[in-house]
């Protein structure tokens, strides 16, 4: 399974969409256009894109409050996302969810969750449904190094392995849970090592290398589609930005420099040019188009109305 030119170009385009979406989200927060917080995916883009490039629309993706990248990678609508960010009626979730609770089921983005690890067993159940339905679809759960400390992560690895579920657990090790470095929270050097205790493959990949992530994910997806069960993928990455608009924590300084060296955007651009897939000029166009799309999304979000108060009482019960 290899990526078409179009897929690679689309990945580059979406990488810019994610980066620029997050920058816009931070700016709009600074302007006081929404409350709560926002958790940028900046610097981690290649992971969501590499994994989602290996998925079909019918495959399901679940993510965390830091899930804007996964949403865009799976094809979510950025206008509706930005409107959701601002709590507008035109948002993906009618403004009820906000930055930490986005979802777009028609593209297989089963949504983000604000409870660290809360979505992991839910992803296991979705994978179980795929198996029971006899479909060859798979489920991916993205989560962080911190989430990998919560009991349900292990419980889910055990059940998914026991039942050979089409589940791909992607732990994005950006080294920090808010302020806590992995060396202070995880008893082994690599989170992938956890898999040894559960009998599923545990693979490490450079989360900032789009192609490496894609290859790793494609293998895990193929394995899952074959019915051979789950895989744990540890994507080594960094979190360049603050934890969130509200909390600083980790990163910064020397980390920021390291990030600049490994920024997935110039990296993917160079590779695309070397592979003769795009030219420098096309790359510039793609970036400009993405910028336009995000600017339009911001305008759309700002111009959109807030939900009517009666919305408080809808969507509670089906």
């Amino acid at each position, binding site marked *: 399974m290899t990526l078409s030119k179009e897929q690679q170009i689309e990945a580059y385009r979406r990488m810019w969409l994610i980066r620029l979406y997050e920058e816009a989200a931070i700016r709009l927060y600074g302007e006081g256009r929404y409350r709560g917080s926002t958790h940028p995916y900046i610097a981690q883009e290649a992971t969501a894109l590499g994994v989602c490039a290996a998925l079909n629309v019918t495959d399901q993706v679940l993510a965390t409050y830091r899930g804007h990248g996964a949403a865009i990678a799976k094809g979510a609508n950025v206008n509706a996302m930005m409107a959701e960010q601002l709590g507008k009626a035109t948002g993906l979730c009618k403004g009820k969810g906000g930055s930490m609770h986005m979802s777009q089921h028609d593209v297989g983005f089963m949504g983000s969750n604000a409870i660290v690890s809360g979505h992991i067993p839910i992803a296991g*159940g*979705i994978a179980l449904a795929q198996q029971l339905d006899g479909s060859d679809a798979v489920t991916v759960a993205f989560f962080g190094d911190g989430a990998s400390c919560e009991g*349900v992560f292990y419980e889910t690895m055990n*059940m998914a392995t026991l039942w050979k579920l089409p589940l791909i657990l992607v732990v994005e090790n950006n080294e920090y849970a808010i302020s806590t470095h992995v060396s202070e929270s995880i008893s082994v050097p690599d989170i992938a090592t956890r898999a040894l205790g559960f009998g599923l493959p545990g693979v490490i990949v450079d989360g900032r290398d789009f192609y490496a992530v894609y290859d790793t994910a494609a293998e895990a997806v193929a394995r899952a589609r074959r019915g051979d069960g789950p895989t744990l993928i540890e994507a080594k990455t960094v979190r360049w930005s603050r934890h969130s608009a509200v909390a600083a924590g980790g990163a910064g300084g020397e980390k920021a420099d390291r990030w600049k060296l490994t920024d997935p955007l110039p990296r993917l651009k160079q590779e695309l040019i070397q592979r003769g897939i795009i030219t420098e000029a096309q790359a510039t166009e793609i970036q400009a188009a993405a910028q336009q799309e995000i600017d339009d999304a911001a305008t759309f979000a700002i111009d959109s109305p807030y939900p009517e108060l009666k919305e408080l009482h809808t*969507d509670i019960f089906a």
Partner: protein
Amino acid sequence: MHELTYAQAINEGIREEMRRNDKIVVMGEDVGKYGGVFGVTRGLFDEFGGARVRDCPLNEAAIVGFAIGLALSGRPTIAELEFMDFTTFAMDPITNQAPKLRYFWGGQATVPLVVRTPIAAGLGFGTQHSQSLEAWLMHVPGLKIAMPSTAYDAKGLIKTAIREPNPVVFAESMGLYSTRGEVPDEDYAIPFGQADVKRKGADVTVVALGLMVPKALKAAEELAALGIDVEVIDPRTIAPLDIDTIVASVKKTGRLVIAHVAHKTGGVGAEIAQQVVERAFDSLDGPPVRVAAQDVPMAASQFLEKALLPDVADIVKACQSFR
């Protein structure tokens, strides 16, 4: 009509629904071959197989989390927690996930989940196996909560719970599992939010939950002999709560007693009392009276347990306490 125990009635309800809808899945500890630690899922594994009736590892949080994933995927799922005390392990999926996903995703999700769990109070299982925690769940918007007290209600309510496209906690009373009752041969389901007046009466309204319903009826008999005519109301579901039926009764009797096995402070009794006070203040002869477990941890020693849990005599006393 045929006679079933309360446990068999739940079993029959699940079985019939699983026959009607082959997407339904049952999950939990020991629910499969063994048929459930209290036998409620007996025979389901043999009839529907291990794919739909799934023995799970001992991890309540993941059991309910997985069940939510199945429900989100269009498979009504019944998860069993062996004692209600163990909901403590699954409070995130039960309260932060199942009842909220549809809301914060703006209506994109539907969560046909049933969490079945028995309340074991009164059987001597001790501090960590005797709690009745429905009050916690009643405080969570998005959850529906059923608490059957008879075989008939148990079957009719479990069917509604399974057909519900929303998360339901089905709180069974272990002390009633072996009680017998008549159940119709034809299919029936009991709508949520419809209280059942188990006994008509003019003098005092007793609202009783689960295990306390038969005790309230017994108390009513004793009180009848004393010339006090008690109306016994079983809400059957506390969310939604059929407050209208309760208020109508109190407007007639002017006196309200609420009986549950849960601890008094912070229990459902306070909520029902306050809702009645809000709606029928002027009809009340006196304050609503709560008959509930004392506010002490459930003790194992049999006489301590008996003393801390509410019983027939306490209901009788409460009904006599009005001026």
